[in-house]
């Protein structure tokens, strides 16, 4: 009985959602804001990647909120695992020679790719979040290859704090120099070159360092405790 009621409810919900979504004009020219970004995004922000110009410049405050959410999540994992005994690599299987050798070769390449992705966020697809996640996955590989690996909590914490601090400082500087919080106050430069798009590269490096160290720390917390 309850099962049938749940199924009926689900069917009603699905039909309603289908009709509601069908009414939304996806992909059609409808929204003035989107058209404005496409037409004048490059002139206004100097970034050739429009996604980045929206994420870091037009909607920078939302990005600050997102970074904060991730920070709170990392704190949650840390608090849950706090005080658990840490292993010393004993009683755990060693990785096979293929995994160990492969990851030793791949680790620097993945790290380099992550840094490339986060440095070129304003030019090509990618940015701080993606680059940070790639860097964190390099550390995951390190843990898989060497089960007894430990990362310095203090250094990861310092990197994380520095990233957050730079982001907020850039925002406050924008408030004093240009009049609004997170407003771009550096010269735009020539679109398409590495040092262009005002504060975007600076902010994205800060986000990349913060996201990378945060995710690496979550993985480290989970891997190093029993």
């Amino acid at each position: 009985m309850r099962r049938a009621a749940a199924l009926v409810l689900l069917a009603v919900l699905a039909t309603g959602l289908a009709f509601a979504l069908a009414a939304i004009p996806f992909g059609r020219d409808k929204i003035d804001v989107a058209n404005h970004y496409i037409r004048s995004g490059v002139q206004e922000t100097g970034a050739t990647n429009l996604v980045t110009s929206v994420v870091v410049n037009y909607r920078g405050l939302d990005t600050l909120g997102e970074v904060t959410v991730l920070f709170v999540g990392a704190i949650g994992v840390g608090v849950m695992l706090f005080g658990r005994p840490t292993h010393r690599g004993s009683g755990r299987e060693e990785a096979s020679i293929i995994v160990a050798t492969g990851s030793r070769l791949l680790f620097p390449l993945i790290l380099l790719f992550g840094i490339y992705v986060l440095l070129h966020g304003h030019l090509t697809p990618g940015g701080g979040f993606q680059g940070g996640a790639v860097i964190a996955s390099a550390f995951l590989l390190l843990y898989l290859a060497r089960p007894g690996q430990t990362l310095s909590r203090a250094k990861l914490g310092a990197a994380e704090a520095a990233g957050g601090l730079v982001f907020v400082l850039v925002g406050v500087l924008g408030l004093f120099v240009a009049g609004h919080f997170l407003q771009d106050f550096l010269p735009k430069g020539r679109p398409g070159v590495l040092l262009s798009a005002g504060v975007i590269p600076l902010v994205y490096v800060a986000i990349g360092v913060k996201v990378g160290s945060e995710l690496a720390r979550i993985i480290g917390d989970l891997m190093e405790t029993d």
Partner: protein
Amino acid sequence: MTVLATILIAVMIAAAVATSVFKDLMNAVIACAAVSLIASVLFYLLDAPDVAMAEAAIGAGLTTAIFVLAIRKTERYER
């Protein structure tokens, strides 16, 4: 493109259903990773490489690892 997208979406729905049906949580996590991986391919086909990158790195990579580690710390089978 349409044929490929249709196949991908069908596999994605099957993997999503499998995620909720499996009692062995390790299998559920792998199915969940498959959903993320196909989602990232679909994002790429829809000309959204930024989102595809984030989905592949976070959804298919890190989230799966974090889930597997969480299962190792708790229980493997759903009661």
